[in-house]
């Protein structure tokens, strides 16, 4: 029930009335269904049996009129419900999408794409199905059953009572069934999600699959999920079929009771033949809703399983949101200060006691072994996670007091794991700054050494770049990602190993360009190459435990004879030997 309440709240207020009116129409039209059969019996009695053609046309026209009216109302109702359910699903999609867009990283660390996709497509579709079909069918059935029963009570209360006696039994059966089928639906829903995930990862990782010639293995894995999904369906069917006979017998009991108990009553004189005719001719109107009930019950259980999944997503608030006391900033100036920052992920320490300051315009470089937490530093700066201890200040204001959009809007990041969108090259560069002119896009692409190869693409800047930039080489993707970050005109520019796949010459060109940017910004560079970091105002070297082991300028660190010096020797020392040959 709480699912319905929630779904109701998703629907626009102005559609509430429309939806209720449609349900009322559904109720009215299901009662109207009883009118024409009774008119038919009048037709038989008054025209044919009485051999009197006079009432023929009026009765026929009334019937036709009723039919046209009913079907028009019915059509209107169906379309109304489609409209209101589409409105709801539209709101739902927007709401869930907004949720996703603002959800924190922990959420994405723990939810698989395939599962989220299932929620937003299949689950959402069941919510639509509920509003456009399940609810009115339920109203239809209940109204039909009740109105016929009431009518029966007026005709002969004893027989009617006998019929209604069946209902508690039916209630009992449906209750037991609902309880047992719920778990099966949850299971089926999970199997669907697992299958979805398997297919999604297979598509995303198709290069790896091919590289390892793992097609057969993938097929096996997918088959396993696909058959688990099939079996989950069959399990529901099996349970349903074990209950179906009872429901069907109860539905048939309606006819049984009318005919035989009615017959007995007739023999005993408790009932007139005319009354019995009414009962027999309308017994379907009580039996049919009972049959419908089973199907509706299944649909409803499935709906509520799906709705639960979506509700969980809808009601799951991100933990990283604008603070109530967040202050508005005009523009991000670029001062960055880490004060004794520590951070742990799932109980594993990642960063320990990080302290450094960068003034606007400074260049800070971060080095360190693989997995030492370099990328974490920038994720904390962009407030993807909140620090466990200490504080991070941007422009002398704690990042937790920044408005997220303003903070992130002022930071331009080129991540090492490049994700491009299936958009044109131009669209990808202008991703964070929609107002750029084409000249500006080219200018920034040029600064990132991307203009050359983009113009050589079949349709130049209008070429659609596939998702993740497939079709481009690693270095080319990185350069587009860099152009994208530059185009934001950020106050803080972060380059997370952005040029690792770019050849040295191009890298040098890019570094030169970075010195001549048309705006001021603080630069934070994460890199493995000495060449990328040596000109920084301050170089931080992290150690395996996530603490700062060394800091200083290139020259200072060389004298230090630590990790930096070792790396320098490894990268250069070999060259010195080579140069001496």
């Amino acid at each position, binding site marked *: 029930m709480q699912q319905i309440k929630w779904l109701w709240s998703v629907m626009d207020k102005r559609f509430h009335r429309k939806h209720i009116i449609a349900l009322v129409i559904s109720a009215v039209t299901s009662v109207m269904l009883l009118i024409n059969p009774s008119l038919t019996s009048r037709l038989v009695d008054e025209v044919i049996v009485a051999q009197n053609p006079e009432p023929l046309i009026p009765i026929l026209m009334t019937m036709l009129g009723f039919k046209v009216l009913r079907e028009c109302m019915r059509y209107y109702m*169906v379309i109304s419900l489609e409209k209101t359910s589409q409105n709801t699903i539209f709101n739902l999609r927007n709401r869930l999408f907004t949720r996703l867009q603002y959800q924190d990283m922990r959420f994405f660390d723990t939810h698989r794409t395939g599962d989220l996709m299932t929620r937003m*497509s299949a689950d959402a579709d069941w919510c639509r199905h509920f509003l456009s079909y399940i609810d009115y069918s339920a109203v239809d059935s209940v109204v039909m059953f009740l109105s016929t029963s009431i009518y029966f009570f007026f005709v002969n209360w004893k027989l009617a009572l006998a019929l209604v006696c069946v209902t508690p039994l039916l209630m009992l059966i449906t209750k037991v069934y609902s309880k047992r089928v719920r778990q099966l639906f949850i299971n089926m829903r999970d199997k669907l999600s697992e299958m979805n995930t398997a297919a999604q990862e297979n598509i995303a990782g198709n290069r790896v699959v091919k590289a390892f010639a793992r097609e057969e293995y993938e097929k096996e894995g997918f088959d396993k999920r696909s058959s688990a999904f*099939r079996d989950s369906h069959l399990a529901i069917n099996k349970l349903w079929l074990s209950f179906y006979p009872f429901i069907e017998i109860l539905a048939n009991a309606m006819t049984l009771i009318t005919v035989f108990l009615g017959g007995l009553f007739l023999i005993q004189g408790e009932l007139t033949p005319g009354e019995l005719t009414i009962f027999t001719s309308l017994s379907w109107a009580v039996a049919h809703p009972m049959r419908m009930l089973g199907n509706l019950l299944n649909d409803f259980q499935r709906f509520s399983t799906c709705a639960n999944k979506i509700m969980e997503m809808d009601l799951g608030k991100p933990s990283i949101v604008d603070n109530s006391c967040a202050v508005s900033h005009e523009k991000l100036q670029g001062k960055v200060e880490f004060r004794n920052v520590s951070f742990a992920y799932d109980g594993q320490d990642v960063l320990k006691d990080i302290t450094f300051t960068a003034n606007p315009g400074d260049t800070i470089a971060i080095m360190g072994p693989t997995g030492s937490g370099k990328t974490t530093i920038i994720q904390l700066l962009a407030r993807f996670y909140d620090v466990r201890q200490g504080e991070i200040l941007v422009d002398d204001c704690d990042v937790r007091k920044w408005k997220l959009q303003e903070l992130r809007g002022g930071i331009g990041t080129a991540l090492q794991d490049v994700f491009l969108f299936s958009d044109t090259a131009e669209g990808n560069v202008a991703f964070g700054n929609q107002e750029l002119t084409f000249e500006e896009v080219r200018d920034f692409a040029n600064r990132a050494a991307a203009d050359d190869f983009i113009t050589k693409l079949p349709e130049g800047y209008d070429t659609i770049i596939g998702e993740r930039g497939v079709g481009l080489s690693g270095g080319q993707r990185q350069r587009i990602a860099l152009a994208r970050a530059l185009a934001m005109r950020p106050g803080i520019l972060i380059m997370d190993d952005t040029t690792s796949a770019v050849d040295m010459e191009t890298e040098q060109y890019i570094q030169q360009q970075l010195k001549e940017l048309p705006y001021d910004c603080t630069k934070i560079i994460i890199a493995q190459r000495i060449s990328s970091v040596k000109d920084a105002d301050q170089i931080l070297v992290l150690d395996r435990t996530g603490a700062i082991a060394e800091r200083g300028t290139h020259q200072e660190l060389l004298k230090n004879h630590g990790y930096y010096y070792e790396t320098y020797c490894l990268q250069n020392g070999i060259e010195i030997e080579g140069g001496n040959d």
Partner: protein
Amino acid sequence: MARNKFDVDESLESPFDLGHLKRAFKYISRHKVKMLLALLLSACASIAGLFVPKITQWVMDEAVPNKDVGMLGKMALLFLGIICLSIVFTVIRSRIMAHVSQEIIYDIRKDLFAHLQKLPFSYYDSRPAGKILVRVINYVNSVSDILSNGIINSILEIINLIFIVVFMFSTNVTMSLIVIAGLPIFAGIIWYLKPRQRKAWQNQSNKNSNYNAYLAESIDGVRVSQLFARQDVNLSIMERLAIACRSAWMRAVYISNSVWFSSEMITQLVFTVMYIAGVYWLGGAIVSFGVILAMGQYVGRFWQPITALANIYNSFVNNLAYLERIFETMDEPVVVDDKEDALTLPDITGEVHFNDVTFGYEEGIQVLEHMDLHVKAGESIALVGPTGAGKSTIVNLLCRFYNLNSGSITLKGEDGKTYDITDVTLNSLRNQLGIMLQDSFIFSGTIMDNIRYGRLNATEDEIRTAAKMVRADDFISEMPQGYLTTVNERGNRLSQGQKQLVSFARTLLSDPRILILDEATSSIDTKTEKLLQEGIQALLKNRTSFIIAHRLSTIKNCDRILYISNKGILEAGSHDELIAKRGAYYELYTAQARDQGLVDE
């Protein structure tokens, strides 16, 4: 090839043809016997059902007037018996059909997925992943019911219809003609609606596919969107796609719902005309009252199956849009495939020949032209050169991810024979090659499983050894659950460098004859890289290897360095030879050396 974007509809060129139905029939015909049985059971259930009115009649006509309570009781038992029988029939039919429809889904999905495994990179590169996903999952789910129960039910309805028609005509031909006269009108309406309906549902499936594509992409790219504070723009794109979905849906349901609406209307009209004709035109003398009474009931019973058929047809038309998409995907040409008489590649020595190889990804734009290369068994080859020069292309061609435009690539087998890579099965070829790609994809699962992907029957110890060799064991062991820590592609659990180490371990585990490292260590710090190189030194000894790297320090010790530029090999030789040559490599090398701060010293 034109790439598809999330908001561009995928056009479907072929007009609908019966071929689709024939293909669908292939999936159905496997269950012929079961479906026939189900049909038979349904027929039995219907026939049993026919006795119910008969029993009612007996009760009313005989038992009640005779006040025969005993007969009433017997009839009640008979009634119960028939109901039970009919329930048994129905239960068995449902059980059978549930299996059939689930098997059909399963079979279609299996074939579709299997075909997807064969499709080239270009297929995946040219469309958003979400559009592929929606076909495998959502579309297949949608079509099953129509292909199983839809068919059974329409056959039943048709049989039903035939019976009614026979009964009707045997009652009164003239009146029957009036009842049937509504049919051409209905057919006309259907004929008018059909193309519109089909288009509307196709359009709806397109919009839905666009929506799903954008959704998948947004989830995968969420980190970038948040970093660029782009959520508002994304929301408006999403809204636009959702509006398109909504209006496409509404248009489709407007049309679809008019089908039942018109059939209901025609039924009532026919009923009216039939009565008027019966009473006036034919006159009480020609047509008996009983006939009119009976015909009045036949109207309903004739049009009921027609409405039911119209509804089945309706859902058939909207599912057809999905079926077309599914078959279209299955028809997607497999560019790189095993030859019919493909051999299993025996163990190879590692000797590789590139003979006059020409290749381009897009028509007319060659990446390599007339390239020749001979690599000896056990040789280590480094590929250097500017970004986009075709270094990765060379190794991609060796793995036969693409077919050559011209020329050939051959491998030497341990049996002394030479094998063209197009003559052997892809599976046996790639099993002997270990390629470590630029982007290291991590599957959701444990780290252990991710490494094991390289060799499925590897033991835990072998996995640990491989991880140790690439220096990944240290950080993996430090994780809370060690090798059993769960990771996923989007997750932040592993840093980029760590992901590279994991996929490096995965490649080593596969124990290839030829090892290909494409920027395998670009995100790994120099010290780890050094240790790693020492670690795999022994391993590399008897293997041919191709190494692509920008940091020249990584590749300096290779037996031969190829400088790739200008659609081919510009320079080749050992480090010392190339330095002595003072060509492109020398330039690159000195530039790097200068850049590294060597000049400062």
